[in-house]
Protein backbone atom coordinates (compact mmCIF):
# COMPACT_ATOMS: atom_id res chain seq x y z
CA UNK A 1 0.00 0.00 0.00
CA UNK A 2 1.11 3.48 -0.81
CA UNK A 3 2.47 5.57 1.98
CA UNK A 4 1.13 9.05 2.25
CA UNK A 5 2.57 11.80 4.31
CA UNK A 6 0.62 12.16 7.50
CA UNK A 7 1.47 15.83 7.34
CA UNK A 8 -0.40 16.87 4.26
CA UNK A 9 -3.83 16.76 2.77
CA UNK A 10 -4.71 17.30 -0.88
CA UNK A 11 -8.17 17.92 -2.26
CA UNK A 12 -7.77 16.95 -5.91
CA UNK A 13 -9.07 18.86 -8.91
CA UNK A 14 -12.32 16.91 -9.27
CA UNK A 15 -13.05 16.94 -5.54
CA UNK A 16 -15.85 19.17 -4.30
CA UNK A 17 -16.43 19.64 -0.61
CA UNK A 18 -19.28 21.37 1.15
CA UNK A 19 -18.54 21.61 4.82
CA UNK A 20 -15.94 22.47 7.37
CA UNK A 21 -12.31 21.38 7.39
CA UNK A 22 -10.07 21.61 10.42
CA UNK A 23 -7.02 19.98 11.89
CA UNK A 24 -3.30 19.49 11.79
CA UNK A 25 -0.86 19.74 8.95
CA UNK A 26 -0.77 21.30 5.53
CA UNK A 27 -3.57 21.45 2.99
CA UNK A 28 -3.59 21.99 -0.74
CA UNK A 29 -6.93 22.68 -2.41
CA UNK A 30 -7.01 21.88 -6.13
CA UNK A 31 -10.77 21.50 -6.45
CA UNK A 32 -13.71 23.32 -4.93
CA UNK A 33 -14.55 24.01 -1.32
CA UNK A 34 -17.59 25.74 0.10
CA UNK A 35 -16.89 26.15 3.77
CA UNK A 36 -14.26 27.21 6.24
CA UNK A 37 -10.75 25.82 6.59
CA UNK A 38 -8.67 25.93 9.72
CA UNK A 39 -5.33 24.10 9.73
CA UNK A 40 -2.14 24.34 11.75
CA UNK A 41 0.12 24.12 8.70
CA UNK A 42 0.40 26.03 5.45
CA UNK A 43 -2.57 26.23 3.09
CA UNK A 44 -2.52 26.51 -0.67
CA UNK A 45 -5.32 27.28 -3.11
CA UNK A 46 -3.98 25.97 -6.39
CA UNK A 47 -4.58 27.36 -9.85
CA UNK A 48 -8.11 26.46 -10.97
CA UNK A 49 -9.25 25.82 -7.40
CA UNK A 50 -11.91 27.81 -5.60
CA UNK A 51 -12.65 28.37 -1.94
CA UNK A 52 -15.77 30.09 -0.68
CA UNK A 53 -15.20 30.50 3.03
CA UNK A 54 -12.67 31.67 5.52
CA UNK A 55 -9.14 30.32 5.77
CA UNK A 56 -7.09 30.08 8.95
CA UNK A 57 -3.61 28.65 8.44
CA UNK A 58 0.08 29.06 9.20
CA UNK A 59 0.54 30.66 5.79
CA UNK A 60 -1.46 30.91 2.58
CA UNK A 61 -0.66 30.86 -1.09
CA UNK A 62 -3.48 31.69 -3.51
CA UNK A 63 -3.25 30.94 -7.23
CA UNK A 64 -6.95 30.10 -7.64
CA UNK A 65 -9.89 31.99 -6.26
CA UNK A 66 -10.81 32.86 -2.69
CA UNK A 67 -14.08 34.46 -1.70
CA UNK A 68 -13.68 34.94 2.01
CA UNK A 69 -11.34 36.12 4.69
CA UNK A 70 -7.92 34.71 5.45
CA UNK A 71 -5.99 34.93 8.70
CA UNK A 72 -2.47 33.54 8.94
CA UNK A 73 0.41 33.75 11.37
CA UNK A 74 2.85 33.85 8.50
CA UNK A 75 2.79 35.32 5.02
CA UNK A 76 0.00 35.41 2.44
CA UNK A 77 0.94 35.32 -1.23
CA UNK A 78 -1.53 36.15 -3.99
CA UNK A 79 -0.16 34.81 -7.26
CA UNK A 80 -0.71 36.06 -10.79
CA UNK A 81 -4.05 34.83 -12.10
CA UNK A 82 -5.60 34.59 -8.65
CA UNK A 83 -8.98 36.12 -7.83
CA UNK A 84 -9.46 37.18 -4.23
CA UNK A 85 -12.24 39.01 -2.44
CA UNK A 86 -12.13 39.40 1.31
CA UNK A 87 -9.99 40.56 4.20
CA UNK A 88 -6.43 39.26 4.34
CA UNK A 89 -4.52 39.34 7.61
CA UNK A 90 -1.01 37.93 7.89
CA UNK A 91 2.54 38.78 8.89
CA UNK A 92 3.22 39.98 5.36
CA UNK A 93 1.16 40.05 2.20
CA UNK A 94 2.34 39.98 -1.40
CA UNK A 95 0.14 40.49 -4.43
CA UNK A 96 1.54 39.68 -7.84
CA UNK A 97 0.69 41.62 -10.99
CA UNK A 98 -1.93 39.80 -13.01
CA UNK A 99 -4.07 38.93 -10.02
CA UNK A 100 -7.53 40.40 -9.48
CA UNK A 101 -8.24 41.41 -5.94
CA UNK A 102 -10.82 43.29 -3.96
CA UNK A 103 -9.37 42.99 -0.50
CA UNK A 104 -8.60 44.72 2.73
CA UNK A 105 -5.10 44.10 3.95
CA UNK A 106 -3.82 43.96 7.49
CA UNK A 107 -0.23 43.06 8.32
CA UNK A 108 -0.65 44.23 11.89
CA UNK A 109 2.18 46.72 11.69
CA UNK A 110 2.42 49.59 14.07
CA UNK A 111 2.57 52.59 11.81
CA UNK A 112 4.34 55.53 13.34
CA UNK A 113 1.72 58.11 12.51
CA UNK A 114 2.10 60.15 15.66
CA UNK A 115 1.11 63.78 15.73
CA UNK A 116 3.42 65.87 13.57
CA UNK A 117 6.13 67.39 15.67
CA UNK A 118 6.05 71.10 16.13
CA UNK A 119 9.14 73.10 16.20
Amino acid at each position, binding site marked *: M*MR*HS*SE*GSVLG*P*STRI*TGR*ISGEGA*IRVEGGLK*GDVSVSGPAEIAEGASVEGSVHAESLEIAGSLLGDAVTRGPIAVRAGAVVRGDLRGSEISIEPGSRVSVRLDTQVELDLGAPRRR
Partner: protein
Amino acid sequence: MAGTVIGEGLSIEGDVSSEEEVVVQGNLRGKLTTTDAVSVGSSAVIEADVSAQSLTIAGQVTGDVTAAERVDLQAGGRLIGDVKASRLTIADGASFKGNVDMDV
Protein backbone atom coordinates in the same frame (compact mmCIF):
# COMPACT_ATOMS: atom_id res chain seq x y z
CA MET B 1 -0.45 9.18 -6.10
CA ALA B 2 -4.04 9.55 -5.07
CA GLY B 3 -5.88 12.61 -6.27
CA THR B 4 -7.31 13.42 -2.89
CA VAL B 5 -5.72 12.70 0.46
CA ILE B 6 -7.43 13.55 3.74
CA GLY B 7 -4.37 13.39 5.96
CA GLU B 8 -4.07 12.12 9.50
CA GLY B 9 -5.03 14.90 11.87
CA LEU B 10 -7.45 16.51 9.43
CA SER B 11 -11.20 16.49 10.06
CA ILE B 12 -13.90 17.17 7.50
CA GLU B 13 -17.52 17.68 8.40
CA GLY B 14 -19.63 17.75 5.28
CA ASP B 15 -20.09 16.29 1.84
CA VAL B 16 -17.15 15.18 -0.25
CA SER B 17 -17.71 14.28 -3.88
CA SER B 18 -15.00 13.41 -6.36
CA GLU B 19 -14.06 11.66 -9.57
CA GLU B 20 -10.67 10.53 -8.40
CA GLU B 21 -9.11 8.20 -5.87
CA VAL B 22 -9.70 9.32 -2.30
CA VAL B 23 -7.40 8.25 0.52
CA VAL B 24 -8.65 8.93 4.02
CA GLN B 25 -6.17 8.89 6.93
CA GLY B 26 -8.03 11.44 9.04
CA ASN B 27 -11.61 11.96 10.14
CA LEU B 28 -14.65 12.42 7.97
CA ARG B 29 -18.21 12.97 9.05
CA GLY B 30 -20.92 13.43 6.46
CA LYS B 31 -20.89 11.80 3.06
CA LEU B 32 -18.21 10.57 0.66
CA THR B 33 -18.88 9.86 -3.00
CA THR B 34 -16.38 9.15 -5.75
CA THR B 35 -16.43 7.38 -9.09
CA ASP B 36 -12.95 6.02 -8.32
CA ALA B 37 -11.48 4.02 -5.44
CA VAL B 38 -11.62 4.89 -1.75
CA SER B 39 -8.95 3.76 0.67
CA VAL B 40 -9.65 4.10 4.38
CA GLY B 41 -6.32 4.00 6.22
CA SER B 42 -5.75 2.45 9.63
CA SER B 43 -5.79 5.84 11.36
CA ALA B 44 -9.03 6.94 9.70
CA VAL B 45 -12.37 7.36 11.43
CA ILE B 46 -15.33 7.80 9.09
CA GLU B 47 -18.91 8.44 10.08
CA ALA B 48 -20.46 8.68 6.68
CA ASP B 49 -22.16 6.82 3.91
CA VAL B 50 -19.55 5.94 1.33
CA SER B 51 -20.13 5.33 -2.35
CA ALA B 52 -17.22 4.40 -4.60
CA GLN B 53 -15.97 2.23 -7.44
CA SER B 54 -14.11 0.10 -4.91
CA LEU B 55 -13.47 0.45 -1.22
CA THR B 56 -10.62 -0.76 0.99
CA ILE B 57 -11.09 -0.41 4.74
CA ALA B 58 -8.24 -0.68 7.25
CA GLY B 59 -9.67 1.90 9.65
CA GLN B 60 -13.09 2.55 11.16
CA VAL B 61 -16.20 3.18 9.12
CA THR B 62 -19.66 3.75 10.53
CA GLY B 63 -22.17 4.10 7.72
CA ASP B 64 -23.56 2.31 4.72
CA VAL B 65 -21.11 1.57 1.95
CA THR B 66 -21.82 1.00 -1.71
CA ALA B 67 -19.21 -0.06 -4.25
CA ALA B 68 -19.68 -0.65 -7.97
CA GLU B 69 -16.96 -3.28 -7.85
CA ARG B 70 -15.80 -4.52 -4.47
CA VAL B 71 -15.35 -3.89 -0.78
CA ASP B 72 -12.29 -5.22 1.04
CA LEU B 73 -12.38 -5.12 4.81
CA GLN B 74 -8.81 -5.63 5.95
CA ALA B 75 -7.38 -6.95 9.21
CA GLY B 76 -7.82 -4.30 11.89
CA GLY B 77 -10.56 -2.66 9.88
CA ARG B 78 -13.97 -2.10 11.44
CA LEU B 79 -17.21 -1.54 9.59
CA ILE B 80 -20.59 -0.90 11.15
CA GLY B 81 -23.13 -0.52 8.39
CA ASP B 82 -24.63 -2.21 5.40
CA VAL B 83 -22.59 -3.25 2.38
CA LYS B 84 -23.86 -3.18 -1.17
CA ALA B 85 -21.27 -4.56 -3.58
CA SER B 86 -20.94 -7.51 -5.92
CA ARG B 87 -17.75 -8.65 -4.18
CA LEU B 88 -16.84 -8.51 -0.52
CA THR B 89 -13.87 -9.82 1.41
CA ILE B 90 -13.57 -9.74 5.18
CA ALA B 91 -10.07 -10.47 6.41
CA ASP B 92 -9.24 -12.39 9.55
CA GLY B 93 -9.00 -9.78 12.31
CA ALA B 94 -11.54 -7.42 10.83
CA SER B 95 -14.81 -6.53 12.56
CA PHE B 96 -18.10 -6.15 10.79
CA LYS B 97 -21.67 -5.56 11.80
CA GLY B 98 -24.32 -5.07 9.16
CA ASN B 99 -26.10 -6.57 6.21
CA VAL B 100 -24.61 -7.58 2.91
CA ASP B 101 -26.35 -7.17 -0.42
CA MET B 102 -24.41 -8.69 -3.31
CA ASP B 103 -27.11 -7.75 -5.77
CA VAL B 104 -27.87 -11.38 -6.75
